[in-house]
């Protein structure tokens, strides 16, 4: 025990630290590493989780879609893209796409218009603001299954509330569950009821972020509330609008619960003649009733691509709209400005001067 002449610590300590800036201490290295790598580490859980529950299923689904794959008996032979070809030739696939898009349009367009309107109303000086704002969110809190049960009963063809009312005022009952257009309207109604308030709140948040002084100066310049809404509010909430439209598109194209439970006892999911069988419902039917996992996976992938395409299209269109609006405005303002200048040159009246001022300020705001 006493034979040890030099402690290991001492031996390790011998190499002299010649200069601080050339070799960093462990602590310094750690803090440099912290600055550089930590953000990635913090965000890593999301990507690890996404890879696990998002990316892997996506790729696996693609592999399944290239096989003849029965739900119960498992993988059969490799068929390449044959499942995709079969689906593209299947009238039911196109039928499901038509239904999905139709229900999507019937729900998204009225929903967004209503949401913008409601948001604009909520943006006014109301009494008990929080009460109104929370109230529009209420439908969103109710689970879609419950919503569907209630609406499904209201839209019942023989015993439903709506047809009873129609008949009591002498109108013909509407075949909500067995005809294409009425069933789409009914399902779109459920979607609208649930999502309008939610979208209105998001748009409201965006509207509140629009600086008040712009509104005030426009008001001073004589712009009415409609003018201010279309020329100031709408262009200012454009990014939020794009967000809302894109999420509505993704949600709308994946619609499942509402058509599935609209008439849950129907022998064919999505109506006896597949009147409202949406693509996801068709996919589900293919996998779990018809047991064809390969084709179901192919549908899933095609739907994925369609949603991406729709998303890009939406983005481009909404950007286009905003920029053409600006272009139209600019040319219109320039024209008016020229006209008023010409007028001012001949007879300089105060009224026209004000008009010119208003036009000029409008140009600034655009």
């Amino acid at each position: 025990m006493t034979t040890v002449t030099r402690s290991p610590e001492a031996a390790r300590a011998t190499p002299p630290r010649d200069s601080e800036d050339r070799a960093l201490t462990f602590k310094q290295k750690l803090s440099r590493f912290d600055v550089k790598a930590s953000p990635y580490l913090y965000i890593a859980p999301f990507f690890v989780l996404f890879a696990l529950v998002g990316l892997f299923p996506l790729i696996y689904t693609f592999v399944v879609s290239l096989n003849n794959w029965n739900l119960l008996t498992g993988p059969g032979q490799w068929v390449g893209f044959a499942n995709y070809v079969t689906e593209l030739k299947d009238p039911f696939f196109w039928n499901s796409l038509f239904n999905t898009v139709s229900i999507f349009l019937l729900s998204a367009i009225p929903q967004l218009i209503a949401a913008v309107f409601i948001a604009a109303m909520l943006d006014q000086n109301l009494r008990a603001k929080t009460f109104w704002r929370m109230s529009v969110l209420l439908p969103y809190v109710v689970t879609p299954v419950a919503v569907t049960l209630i609406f499904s009963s209201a839209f019942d063809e023989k015993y439903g509330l709506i047809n009873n009312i129609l008949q009591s005022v002498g109108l013909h009952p509407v075949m909500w569950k067995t005809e294409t257009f009425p069933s789409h309207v009914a399902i779109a109604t459920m979607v609208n009821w649930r999502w309008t308030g939610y979208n209105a709140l998001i748009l409201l948040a965006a509207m509140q972020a629009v600086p008040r002084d712009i509104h005030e100066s426009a008001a001073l310049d004589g712009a009415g509330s409609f003018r201010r809404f279309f020329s100031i509010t709408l262009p200012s909430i454009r990014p939020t609008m794009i967000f809302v439209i894109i999420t509505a598109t993704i949600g709308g194209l994946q619609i499942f619960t509402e058509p599935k439970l609209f008439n849950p006892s129907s022998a064919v999911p999505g109506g006896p003649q597949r009147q409202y069988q949406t693509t996801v419902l068709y996919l589900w039917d293919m996998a779990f009733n018809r047991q064809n996992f390969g084709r179901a996976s192919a549908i899933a992938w095609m739907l994925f691509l369609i949603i991406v395409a729709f998303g890009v299209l939406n983005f481009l269109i909404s950007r286009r709209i905003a920029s053409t609006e600006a272009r139209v405005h600019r040319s219109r303002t320039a024209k008016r400005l020229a006209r008023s200048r010409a007028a001012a040159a001949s007879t300089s009246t105060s009224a026209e001067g004000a008009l010119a001022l208003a036009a000029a300020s409008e140009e600034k705001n655009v």
Partner: protein
Amino acid sequence: MKLSRRTKVAAAVAATASFALLATGCSASGSDAGTSSNPITLTVTTFGTMGFDKLYSQYEKEHPGIKIKATNIDTGDNALTDWQTKEAAGSGLPDVQAVEEGWLSKVMQVSDQFNDLKDYGANDIKSRWVDWKLKQATDKSGRIIGYGTDIGPEGLCYNGKLFAAAGLPSDRDSVAKLFGGDNATWDDFFKVGEQYKAATGKAFYDQSGFIWNAMVNQQPEGYYTKDGKLNIENNSDLKALWSKLAGGAAAGLSSNQTQWDWGKGKAFTDGSFATFVCPGWMLGVVQGQVKAGGGDASTGWDFANVFPGGAANWGGSFLTVPKQSKHPKEAAALAAWLTTAKSQVSTFQAAGTFPSVTEAQSDPGVTGDSDLTKFFNNAPVGKILAERAKGVVAQYKGPDDSVIQSQVFGPSVQQLDSGKANGDQAWANAMTLLNQLVVNK
């Protein structure tokens, strides 16, 4: 991704460790019988109302080495999705899985995924069931994969008050005679229906789907021949039945109700229709619907010992032991015990499921009075069902049977009921769907 040598080593160590754990874990819970201090836990998955709850605790009391963990899924359809998913995934199935007749054809596609109960004493008890029930649970290679629980022999529910109002006889025996008694045919049924319609102007039955279902099920061969060939397009028997069904719908005998909905029971109480296809388990459904619609026993529903076109069965379940079970011997013993005559009397009393065991069918507990008999105007429900179970044949069900029933004929049946197509058009539409969904899939 390329594995480095170190990861490989680590993986090997982990694999060995987990294998060791697994091995010791297995020897701990063992394949040898459980004891009260170290019981075996058996998992059971059922659906709907099968009436086993009391029996589980009794079994646990009688077998101290067994603990039962039961899961009940609300409907047969959801149970099918549950089973399919776990079967496809290759894990998660219970020791005892209840299987419904409606999806038996799917189960039979993977019958090798179930234990042959003959290895666990099925041969000693197989005489307990009505023969066709046992046949249904036997796969192509002769393995018995399920023990029968209940069956669904079909009788005719009718509303005595509505019959009387239409000037038809309304007591049970006369009604049975009206439809032709033991030789009742569908022609008789539609003929009485036309009389009823002429007298009241109202529909005779709720919708055509259940009638078509019964018509097909009571044939010796349905959508498939006995040796498993699809036989619909040139099947003159089916086509003839379809014409009868279409004739009834065209005469306005169908009330075009939404099946399984019936206006939340309203249709059962407002006189929309006067007859209803009733397998044993449906009696409870009718009772529930009438109550939901605001009616009670005085609404007039009764149950007659007659069924058009001969004996028919609809539904009923089996208890199976999937290969995934770690305790097949104990699971098979439990399944056998849950399907004894005594157990089936108990489940009939708890849930109204009519026994598939012959001895139980004549048990006073089944034939005697109950809530159900009181509801159906004191009809001897148990006795009638035992009569109706005679002469049922086990029909071969092909792999696509349920798809054909719901997706090929379902739309056409709806077209008949809503008057959107006549019999020939609707049949042609069904054949188009058949080719699209089944033949060229």
